[in-house]
């Protein structure tokens, strides 16, 4: 087990190196720092001096991979690759193109992201399970038919509609919650209520259909028939027997999502003005701040890999029959 996990972590690091090289190639060789400077300063008539100045300020004036002019180890360390890409492994993010410390920003913004993501996640799983179990409970009736129809309809609506209409309805017309913003203390609930509800609704359709198939697959199995023939009521069969067994695949599929919650809900945060990692990323994309985008790519994939490893481990915890080797 320990051996396996160590091997998985090694593989994860290998993948991170791949991600790192890939983003480096994408950001620095496809387009040179000169292009980035020109784009950032803006306009076509940018003097070479201004570009050089921009590059020096951000350390982009160094050679990409090999600095032949420096002595000893600095041949490798005093390059863009080392300073900008390799150091990410030590979680040294450096400063963004607009000059602020990325690491500090990340630490500041993780909190709000989690405050939004965790309740959305937990309540979401709960609501989806209840909805899909009810569909299974009323299977082969009109209720299930309309439930499925409703879920397919929800699935076909862009998440942006939920946000725009939700903000309009609850904030502007009914004036129940503020349109956007963020504050600590008790106000937190007021500000987060709407994003959480919308976050749940926008995921409900697809996931409820998915869970429903899981439950239906279980319902056809022998142990369910046995439970019924013992004389157990349908409610007990569903909520005690089916739910528990179907939870295994569901839980393991959701564990992989957990670390990504740190990244926050990109769109949701930016619409509701929540100062989390998601809105940070979107602002960076809009401002074409490549340093931030690069760091977020790295953080995102690192979290994804953590998620994969957690999934593997949770398999063994949830189902003792599975042994990792």
């Amino acid at each position, binding site marked *: 087990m320990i051996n396996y996990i160590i091997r998985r972590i090694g593989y994860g690091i290998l993948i991170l190196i791949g991600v790192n090289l890939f983003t480096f190639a*994408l950001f620095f060789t496809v387009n040179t720092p000169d292009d980035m400077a020109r784009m950032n300063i803006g306009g076509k008539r940018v003097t070479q001096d201004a570009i050089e100045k921009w590059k020096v300020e951000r350390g982009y004036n160094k050679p990409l991979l090999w600095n032949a002019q420096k002595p000893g180890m600095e041949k490798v360390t005093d390059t863009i690759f080392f300073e900008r890409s390799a150091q990410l492994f030590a979680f040294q993010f450096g400063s963004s193109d607009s000059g602020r410390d990325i690491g500090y920003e990340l630490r500041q913004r993780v909190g709000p992201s989690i405050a939004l993501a965790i309740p959305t996640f937990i309540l979401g799983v709960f609501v989806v399970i209840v909805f899909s179990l009810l569909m299974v409970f009323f299977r082969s009736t009109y209720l299930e038919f309309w439930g499925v129809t409703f879920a397919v309809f929800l699935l076909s609506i862009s998440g942006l*509609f939920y946000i725009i209409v939700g903000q309009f309805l609850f904030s502007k017309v009914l004036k129940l919650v503020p349109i956007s913003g963020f504050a600590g203390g008790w106000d937190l609930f007021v500000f987060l209520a709407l994003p959480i509800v919308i976050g749940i609704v*926008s995921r409900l359709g697809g996931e409820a259909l998915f869970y429903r198939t899981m439950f*239906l697959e279980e319902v056809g199995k022998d142990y369910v028939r046995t439970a019924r023939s013992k004389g157990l009521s349908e409610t007990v069969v569903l909520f005690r027997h089916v739910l528990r067994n179907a939870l295994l695949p569901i839980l393991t599929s959701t564990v992989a999502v957990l670390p990504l919650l740190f990244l926050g809900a990109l769109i949701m945060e930016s619409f509701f003005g929540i100062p989390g990692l998601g809105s940070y990323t979107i602002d960076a994309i809009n401002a074409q701040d490549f340093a931030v985008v690069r760091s977020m790519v790295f953080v995102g994939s690192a979290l994804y890999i953590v998620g994969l490893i957690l999934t593997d481990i949770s398999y063994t915890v949830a189902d003792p029959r599975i042994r990792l080797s």
Partner: protein
Amino acid sequence: MPKLVFLATDIALYVLVFVIAFYVWHARRTPTLRQTWRGVLHDPAAMSAGVVLAIFLLIAMLDSFHFRPLLAPASGAAADAAPAYSTRTLSVLDALLAGPRESREKTYSVPLGTHQFSKESMLVDGKSVRDFPRLQFGGAHLKDPDSEWAGDVVRQSLMGVAGGILAAAALWVGVAFLRARTSRASLGDSLRAIWRRSTEVPWRAMLLTASIVAIFVGWVVALWPYYHVFGTDQTGNDVLFQAIKSIRTAVVIGSLATIATLPFAIVFGILAGYYKGRTDDAIQYLYTVLSSIPSVLLIAAFVLMIQVFIDKNPQLFDTGLERADIRLFLLAAILGITGWAGLARLLRAETLKLGELDYVQAARAFGVSDTGIMRRHILPNVTHIVVIVAVLDFSGLVLYEAVLSYVGVGVDPTTNSFGTMINSARNEMSRDPVVWWTLLAAFGFMVTLVLSMTLFASAVREAFDPRARAFRVRRAKPVPANLVVPAVIVPAAGL
């Protein structure tokens, strides 16, 4: 003679239609495929969705034949002077809808409105007053809008709806007539058979869908020459026209991005599953790296790079439309390059399974080359997975486009798309009084497209994947719509 223009996405769409036609021809000739697709053809929900999809595809294709109109020769020019072409590239759809396209107002106006949405200073009888000015085109034929408007709208609507009903009736009779001729029954019997749902192909559901569409189209056709049916946007452009133009963008993104994933997924998936060992390791590493990067960020990174490239090489593109189009094309390509991991994983697993089967072993024993085995024996037996995933991905991608456009890495801002429409609706919804029609139009068209595709895709999946049959809603009575659960949760919402 106008000058024909072939944009990158145009050509891709032609190729796509050609490929679909080839597949249909191929499927008709292959007994097993014909049997499988019969499951889709006999599914009422899927076929109704198919009618809607066909209309959307038709609009997208009309919007994909581009040309630059010939300008009238300048006065005094020599008779044999080279012909001059307009700098604006138009599509056949633009030409058909020239009326609404050219009737630009100044700014917002409500659907079917006759007056502008905001007040303006005007000179009336020499005095300056602030009032809502009349629209230049919307309701311009009315002398006194206050008294005539309601009557005129009702009259035109009734005429349009009546026309739509007539067209629908003609459709019913036409289909019944064609069926009657092939089966040598009377026209009345044929109509009755359709109505009683005793036909193999669910004609009743399809004709009902077509009738609803016909009535809506009739209503629009009757009113559109006189009014802006869905109002106008901030710069005074007709919203309905924009929504119709957006269809092409959605179809291009949905289909081209799916097509772009196929070569990577098929080649890498089959190679990994067939050769195993080192090849497998390398390919698995490749797609794990790609899928470990959050997709929005990966796409954003690519698109930012493209934007730099386009800005750096403006001389490559003659017109603004070409520049916008190349961005759309590359966006679809990027979605393909970044999105092939899922399908490749499925194909790899399937190939691993197939590789152990007797007929593949036999082929190997006969000395068939590796490429030969993969091409002749493996590929045909994994196509069902490709078809299922391709149709399932489509609707997810259409939804994804809206999110990407919001993030600012979607289509060019000058391209009409549902994403850009929703994006502008965001600000409009916070105005007072609220501007709701852009959002409504985008919502209506987008839901129709995505919902149709979801229904169609679930029927395709059901036909190709027999296990999925257990998941449909089972009922004693004939089921009006066979809803099957999509296999994949659409990961695209990104929320």
